[in-house]
């Protein structure tokens, strides 16, 4: 299932959060959406999730123009921390189950165990790392064609990051699910990405296939990213 941005633009007053952004994310691949803070990554994901509407241009998932109803096809992990503090992990899982018909309780159970999340603990008792893990559990337990992850690593330590990368490898349905991960922390993610897209100041900068970068240019994603931001980023100002 594809996610197609066509000239997608979002303005807040005179500021552009996203500026004439066009790109097609193809079915069954894992994409890294890279850019510095404030580059428009989150806005792009929110648009694909139907949480923000474009001021101009369009976003379509599987050919369907995105509205709030697109959440049937799209799982979205927010960079924010939004849990009901008095809920236990178990209650949080049942809440998700009640909201999304595609939520797979067995998969959620497996994920919880894999990540060592205590089911009876309340949200307010969870460490930051465990809250990060729980967010991922809730996103990955849905059987949807598109998964959007906004900064899944932000503020989490190396061990948590590793467990997150591992669950992505374990639970994503490769070739079927399209995964877009917005991040500026590249190192952990690099070996699991198929392709990368760089944006800055709301504008598309470049798109690359990760293995081709290494093979043809001898560049890691991190190096390519720095170079792209330096060279092309200044033009986009």
């Amino acid at each position, binding site marked *: 299932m594809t996610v197609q941005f066509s000239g997608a633009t979002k303005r807040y007053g005179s500021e552009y959060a996203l500026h004439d952004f066009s790109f097609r994310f193809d079915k069954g691949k894992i994409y890294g959406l890279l850019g510095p803070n404030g580059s428009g990554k989150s806005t792009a994901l929110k648009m694909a999730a139907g949480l923000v509407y474009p001021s101009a241009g369009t976003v379509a998932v599987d050919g369907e123009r995105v509205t709030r109803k697109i959440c049937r096809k799209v799982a979205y992990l927010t960079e924010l921390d939004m849990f009901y503090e008095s809920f236990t992990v178990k209650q949080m899982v049942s809440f998700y189950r009640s909201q999304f018909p595609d939520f797979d309780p067995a998969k959620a159970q497996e994920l919880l165990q894999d990540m060592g999340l205590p089911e009876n603990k309340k949200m307010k008792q969870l460490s930051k790392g465990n809250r990060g893990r729980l967010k991922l559990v809730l996103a990955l337990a849905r059987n949807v064609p598109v998964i959007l992850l906004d900064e899944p690593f932000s503020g989490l330590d190396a061990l948590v990051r590793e467990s997150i990368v591992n669950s992505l*490898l374990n639970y994503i349905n490769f070739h079927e699910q399209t995964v877009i991960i917005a991040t500026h922390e590249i190192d952990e993610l690099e070996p699991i990405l198929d392709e990368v897209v760089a944006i800055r100041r709301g504008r598309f900068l470049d798109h690359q296939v990760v293995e081709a970068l290494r093979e043809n240019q001898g560049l890691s994603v991190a190096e390519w990213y720095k170079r792209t931001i330096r060279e092309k980023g200044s033009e986009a100002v």
Partner: protein
Amino acid sequence: MDKEYEVSKPIYMQIAEKIFRRIIRQEIKPGDKLPSVREMAIQAGVNPNTIQRTYMEMERMGIVETRRGQGTFVVERQEIVDELMQTMQKEIIGQFVKNMMELGLGKKEIVKSLEEYLERGEDK
């Protein structure tokens, strides 16, 4: 999870070389079954698409074969162990010689410096 892949080489090739080294050391033997693409991806901490490419490349090189519905196996030829040994040696030496030549050293100097190094022992 294996980390730290070299930058200048595609990851799928680096994983193939890891498998080759294990075949040379006889940790994996001719006729052995390799882990499924997904299992291998998790072990290596990389995208399954990458492993698929690793397996395809190894198949193209005649090191493994895919049996329908059964998985991927190292071919049942004892000779491939030697062949891989030769291939890997050539590659390592090739890289070494290239690096030395970039330092401006000639053939004799390379041999001499290697001999000296080996005689002195590895730690010195």
